[in-house]
């Protein structure tokens, strides 16, 4: 400022006034006693006080408590001593109580005599700067704290490492599991003392040798594969193998391991005791099951003996009565006794049939079969069997492939499944019989225990009680039954299982407790047309003699030879008899014309019936053969899959059924 400023004109005065009032900082003039004498508009606006409220107050009255004290102890003294004071950071309290961070400059203006004329205070809004300072302070504190933490860490690191090392050493020493470190070649470099305890070896026996040396030979390949796997991923699912004890015996351990820092670190939990217990348990279970089976076999054979005795009593009684009546010349009642004997024989035959089916030794006569037609033929019978409280529905797939199966056996199986379904629904419900074509791929085949290929399925679904998994698992076991004693033989599902397996198929159960059960039979597809269904019951009793032909009958049972010969003669055929395979073959290798060979399978004379037939076909290709057999060695008759023009008739058979088969074979 000039010492003698020229008097400003009015415009200049206005200009200066505007500059004072509206400058981007607050201006205050205070008297020597600190009281405000003038304040500009900017400061009024910032603080919310109008100029009238500010004039007469002291500047320090506008400060917060810390500012007041600072003002009195630092600001005011220094202003006195220095004549000015720059950039003091203070907080001004606004009229609404909020604070305005400011930077304050002050300068003392003196008059010519040196007395204080006024104190000029300049106030800058420092809101932004204060915020940066706070952030800076916070950042510095954070970094100081981090620095302190780091110093602490450094100071304590050594002891902590030592503590940790001791803890690890203790864990290593006290572990009851085998702990080991090995190189990538499997050579053991370090073991804990548990090895001596469990295996007798000292550390020096083990270190430097590969684990392979101690591994049970049977486990070696799998163990080496597991070891190789550790390099790819840590072995977290315990792997068990046998490790040799000092005494030469082997002990089981379940290992987990990881590959870290070029070493294998492994931990092995001893499991020998678990294995021994598991083995004992399995043994006990087997023994229990065996005794259950024996008990069931005992019950069954007892029951069968009882049934057979009844039937034999009926047959022998009838025959005796017939002989008596014939002796008396009374021929009128003979029919009655004949019927009684025949009925008893049929029941006996049915009984043996069931037994053979369960033992999977029944003789099957598979034919290409339209299963849909078979099911619809059974529908009535099923309905009558399950009763009115159960709704039966059949869903036959259109275009269903033919199956190569023994139709009566499939009927039997279907009826059995429906009876089981009925028994699972004591309060009624619904049975759905469904057929479908199925393609079984590798994976599904593996799941269902079937070779991959094309099958058709026959499923019976009920809405009954369902079965828990443990019952499903045993459902096919012979003699397993959930029915009360005396109500089921436990053979039903077993027979179905035997039949399905023998037919090259499978049975599967899907069941949920409370929801119901689906039983599915998978049957192999037959490539070709189904034969028109022939019904064994439809055999005509009208024999038609006069069908010329020569038939060789080979059976070691003279009664059977006699009966067959009689049937043949009834048919007008010439019969040649042989009592064993050697005699039979001699006839077959002669020049005698033979239209049909009827033979038992089990024969004396060095060959069975099949071998004899095969040998005969060398010189007589296309020789028609009918095997009659009580129980077929399945291999002998091709597991039910016979060559063309080879057929099977199961003993016992009705003479009429025999006549029908012979007639149809010669007629072809």
């Amino acid at each position, binding site marked *: 400022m000039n010492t003698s400023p020229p008097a400003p004109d009015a415009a200049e005065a206005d200009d200066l006034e505007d500059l004072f009032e509206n400058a981007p900082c607050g201006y205050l003039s205070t008297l020597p006693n600190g009281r405000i004498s003038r304040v500009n508009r900017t400061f009024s606006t910032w603080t919310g006080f109008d100029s009238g409220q500010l004039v007469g107050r002291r500047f320090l009255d506008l400060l917060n408590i*810390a500012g007041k004290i600072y003002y009195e*102890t630092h600001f005011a*003294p220094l202003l006195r*001593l220095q004549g000015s004071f720059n950039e003091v950071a203070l907080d001004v309290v606004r009229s609404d109580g909020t604070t305005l961070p400011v930077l304050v400059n002050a300068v003392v203006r003196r008059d010519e005599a040196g007395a204080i004329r006024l104190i000029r205070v300049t106030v800058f809004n420092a809101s932004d700067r204060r915020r940066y300072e706070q952030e800076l302070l916070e950042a510095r504190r954070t970094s100081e704290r981090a620095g302190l933490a780091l110093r602490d860490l450094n100071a304590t690191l050594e002891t902590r490492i030592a503590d940790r090392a001791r803890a690890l050493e203790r864990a290593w020493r006290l572990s009851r599991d085998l702990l080991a470190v090995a190189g990538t070649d499997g050579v053991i470099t370090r073991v804990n003392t548990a090895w001596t305890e469990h295996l007798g070896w000292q550390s020096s026996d083990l270190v430097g040798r590969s684990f392979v040396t101690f591994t049970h030979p049977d486990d070696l390949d799998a163990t080496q594969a597991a070891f190789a796997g550790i390099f790819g991923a840590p072995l977290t699912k315990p792997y068990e193998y046998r490790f040799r004890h000092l005494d030469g015996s082997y002990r089981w351990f379940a290992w987990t391991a990881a590959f870290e820092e070029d070493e294998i670190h492994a931990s092995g939990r001893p499991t020998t005791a678990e294995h021994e217990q598991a083995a004992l348990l399995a043994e006990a279970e087997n023994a229990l099951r065996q005794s259950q089976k024996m008990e069931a076999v005992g019950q069954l054979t007892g029951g069968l003996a009882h049934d057979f005795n009844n039937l034999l009593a009926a047959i022998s009684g009838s025959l005796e009565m017939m002989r008596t009546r014939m002796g008396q010349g009374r021929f009128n009642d003979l029919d009655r006794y004949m019927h009684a004997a025949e009925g008893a024989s049929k029941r006996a035959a049915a009984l043996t049939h069931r037994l053979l089916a369960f033992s999977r030794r029944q003789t099957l006569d598979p034919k290409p079969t339209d299963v849909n037609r078979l099911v619809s033929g059974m529908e009535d019978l099923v309905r009558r069997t399950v009763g009115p409280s159960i709704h039966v529905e059949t869903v036959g797939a259109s275009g269903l492939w033919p199956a190569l199966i023994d139709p009566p056996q499939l009927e039997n199986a279907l009826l059995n499944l429906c009876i089981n379904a009925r028994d699972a629904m004591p309060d009624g419900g619904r049975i759905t019989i469904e057929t479908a074509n199925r393609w079984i791929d590798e994976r599904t085949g593996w799941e269902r225990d079937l070779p991959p290929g094309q099958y058709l399925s026959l499923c019976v679904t009920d809405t009954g009680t369902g079965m828990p998994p443990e019952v499903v698992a045993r459902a096919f076991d012979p003699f397993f039954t959930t029915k009360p004693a005396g109500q089921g033989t436990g053979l039903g599902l077993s027979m179905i299982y035997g039949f399905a397996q023998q037919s090259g198929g499978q049975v599967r159960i899907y069941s949920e407790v409370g929801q119901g059960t689906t039983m599915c039979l998978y049957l192999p597809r037959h490539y070709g047309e189904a034969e028109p269904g022939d019904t064994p019951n439809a055999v005509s009793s009208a024999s038609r003699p006069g069908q010329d032909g020569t038939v060789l009958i080979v059976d070691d049972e003279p009664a059977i030879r006699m009966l067959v010969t009689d049937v043949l003669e009834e048919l007008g055929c010439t019969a040649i008899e042989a009592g064993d395979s050697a005699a039979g073959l001699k006839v077959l290798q002669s020049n005698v014309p033979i239209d049909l060979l009827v033979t038992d399978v089990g024969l004396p004379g060095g060959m069975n019936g099949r071998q004899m037939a095969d040998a005969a076909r060398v010189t007589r290709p296309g020789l028609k053969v009918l095997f009659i057999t009580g129980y077929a060695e399945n291999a002998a008759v091709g597991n039910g899959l016979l060559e063309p023009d080879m057929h099977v008739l199961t003993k016992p058979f009705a003479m009429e059924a025999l006549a029908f088969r012979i007639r149809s074979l010669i007629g072809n």
Partner: protein
Amino acid sequence: MVFAHGFGCDQNMWRFVAPAFAGEFRTILFDHVGAGGSDLTAYDPDRYATLNGYADDVVELCQALDIRGGVFVGHSVSAMIGVLASRKAPEIFDTLVMVCPSPRYIDDAGYEGGFSAAQVHELLEFLDSNHMGWSQAMAPVIMGNPDRPELGEELTNSFCRTDPDIAKRFARTTFLSDNRADLAGVTARCLVIQCSEDVIAPVAVGAYVHANLRDSELVQIDATGHCPNLSAPVETIAAMRAFL
């Protein structure tokens, strides 16, 4: 005559007053530990956690200088330091001049100290949280003058240097002190100089001090603020002369 400065400054506080007595008295000026040119390494937080530590310094200093029957002139908190020193060694001073004294800053039952406990708490919290703005960053900014570094250096070296951390502790010691009970034991003659408008030591506090001293005189001078030794040196000197 020993001059002791208060919180916030150093012996420069006395530059307008002390020279007036240099003719009649042997005048002694010193900086408390942590202020001015004192040896900062001598600062011991435990020793200076109460005013007793500062009073011990005064006693040691005066004994070293072999002062007996002297005059102690204490500003602000140092007035109370003088009271404590006088009680510890009554033979050193027979006169205490107390400029704007306060035996307790926080209001108490039946006592008006000028500050509520909350206000002092706010002050101390402010010091803790904001020392960059208040003392650490400010000291150099206040003292420094980027345009005239030679002046900055001169000012920095001349006036009110305080170590920021020690200043914080000194503020705590000062504003939490309560030496009311010590007043009664003072045997020396006392002059209480009170300003008419002082935020830190209100008129009522001066009256309290005067009332609780055995032998005292109260002079209220017409000066605003807490530092009449700077803002009203003439009146201060006059009051002292009149008393002495």
